[in-house]
């Protein structure tokens, strides 16, 4: 509601920022499906984000593909990557899983950065055009693109909300709490985790597609561990396992980065500090703090 009226209230700069926040909210929610609901802490979620972005970018630039083709192929690429990485990583747990997801994503980064002839290396791929969907409003303009993003993210969020409230979603929560118990109850734990992993990858891929269209540019940064760390922080800061928490976390971190970069170049350090502070003082995130506050209030 508020989001729908936003273009009438703010300038196009802030609309672009709002689009970015929406995209990262989707990205964060996709990771929440893994971390918050399935208990899968992945340090390589940017892999799916970047793979779909590069696919869209390459297809649009090099093959002149239409938006529909690029988007579907991008999503497919993210899904395939999720399927492959899931097969490799899900045989492990805990620190091993963290380590392997990190390594897999970083290797993708290395390929993106090193394969200059294909990906443009560290310079990335510029001048990717916005999708032409045959609508009367050109998506190259900020406002129509904002609505495009809003629509897609809202739809995706609705689907994610349905997923986490479904029997599948509750099974995931059970797995998060105790895999052995769920296994004893007859659930094929690995299969549930795998499906969650691929789904998370798909939604992250969707966010990646939107982001490459927003920026009209893709670079290895999309896949770098810093990006994975960013989205992980958004989930934790907002509150893992709540879906809305990570969305809030995304908004906060993007705004924070925006403010910090106007004052200093040291935003990486600032991000690191936020990481440390959140881990030390607010491990359940903002939503966790709010819940704690209400709990204390109603108890007194």
């Amino acid at each position, binding site marked *: 509601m508020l989001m729908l009226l936003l273009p009438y209230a703010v300038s196009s700069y802030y609309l672009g920022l709002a689009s970015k926040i929406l995209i990262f909210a989707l990205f964060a929610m996709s990771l929440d499906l893994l971390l918050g609901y399935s208990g899968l802490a992945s340090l390589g979620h940017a892999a799916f984000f970047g793979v779909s972005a590069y696919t869209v970018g390459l297809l649009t630039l090099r093959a002149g593909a239409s938006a529909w083709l690029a988007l579907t192929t991008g999503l497919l690429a993210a899904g395939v990557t999720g399927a492959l990485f899931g097969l490799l990583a899900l045989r492990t747990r805990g620190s091993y899983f963290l380590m392997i997801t990190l390594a897999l994503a970083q290797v993708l980064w290395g390929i993106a950065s090193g394969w200059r002839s294909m990906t443009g290396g560290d310079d990335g791929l510029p001048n990717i055009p916005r999708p032409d969907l045959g609508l009367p409003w050109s998506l190259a303009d900020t406002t129509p693109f904002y609505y495009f993003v809003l629509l897609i993210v809202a739809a995706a969020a609705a689907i994610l909300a349905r997923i986490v409230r479904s029997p599948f979603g509750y099974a995931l929560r059970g797995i998060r709490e105790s895999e052995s118990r769920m296994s004893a109850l007859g659930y094929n734990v690995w299969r549930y985790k795998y499906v969650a992993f691929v789904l998370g990858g798909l939604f992250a891929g969707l966010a990646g597609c939107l982001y490459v269209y927003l920026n009209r540019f893709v670079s290895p940064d999309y896949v770098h561990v810093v990006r994975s760390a960013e989205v992980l922080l958004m989930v934790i800061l907002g509150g893992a396992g709540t879906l809305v928490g990570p969305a809030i976390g995304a908004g906060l971190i993007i705004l924070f980065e925006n403010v910090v970069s106007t004052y200093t170049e040291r935003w990486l350090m600032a*991000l*690191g500090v936020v990481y440390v502070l959140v881990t030390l003082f607010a491990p359940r995130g903002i939503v966790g703090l709010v819940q704690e506050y209400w709990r204390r209030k109603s108890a007194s």
Partner: protein
Amino acid sequence: MSFWVVHALNGISFGMLLFLLAAGLSLIYGLMKILNLTHGSYYLLGAYIGLSVVRGTGSFVLAVAVATLAIALIGALMERFLLRRFHLQELPQALLTFGFLFIFADLALLIWGGNSQTLPKPEAFAHSVHIAGIVYPTYRLFLIVVGLLVGAALWWFQEGTRAGAMLRAGVDDEEIARGLGINVSLLFTLVFALGAFLAALGGVLGGPIVGVYPGADFEVLLLGLVVVIIGGLGSLKGALVGGLLVGLLDNFGRTFFPELALFTIFVPMVAILAIRPTGIFGRA
């Protein structure tokens, strides 16, 4: 023929650096179950501190001593005051070490600038030697020897000393070890410091051949993780074998497929994950 020998030696010497890094990662994980992502920073900061010391005093030996001890101290402080609060909570510990990786990365950029630099080789090893029909830099041979010596020292420590026995006890079962009166908390701090020490040693020793530049922390951390994935987390043997393997692969990869160098590492890593996810010498 000489081409292969040169490149093999390059790979092995680089592999020794990776072994130093991976040994630290493995030791820390083995005992404390902490995935220390700050390890990359320890490497880079060690290299930068070494660089400053060499610039200031001209002594490579002093650079090694100061850098390794300084980083060991930082490691000890981090473990004692921050990581210990999250004992056995893997995600918060990973996040904390992650946060510090970023903080140190930016700090290094702030202090030493963004240019790529190299540590000058120590005079004693700045030349080349004729062996086996090739001319090869003595520094790299020095690295290989150091790597083997450190490996031997770590092995002797772990298997042959009482402290090593306490370490192995702590790895096997922390609670019982504490029950036996072993000061596991002190062991934690010391082992963490040792791991950091090794990383910094790798940083200073690697400075002359790998260079010292922003981003080296992430790159070296990735390679360290790959080594540990292939060799097995918590295993010294795995760190050595994995280090040599990755060093050789990385080198030959860069030589034959410069654009896809990381791909040559990717494939064996995927293979290990598919066949034996805990690594060659890893514990299940």
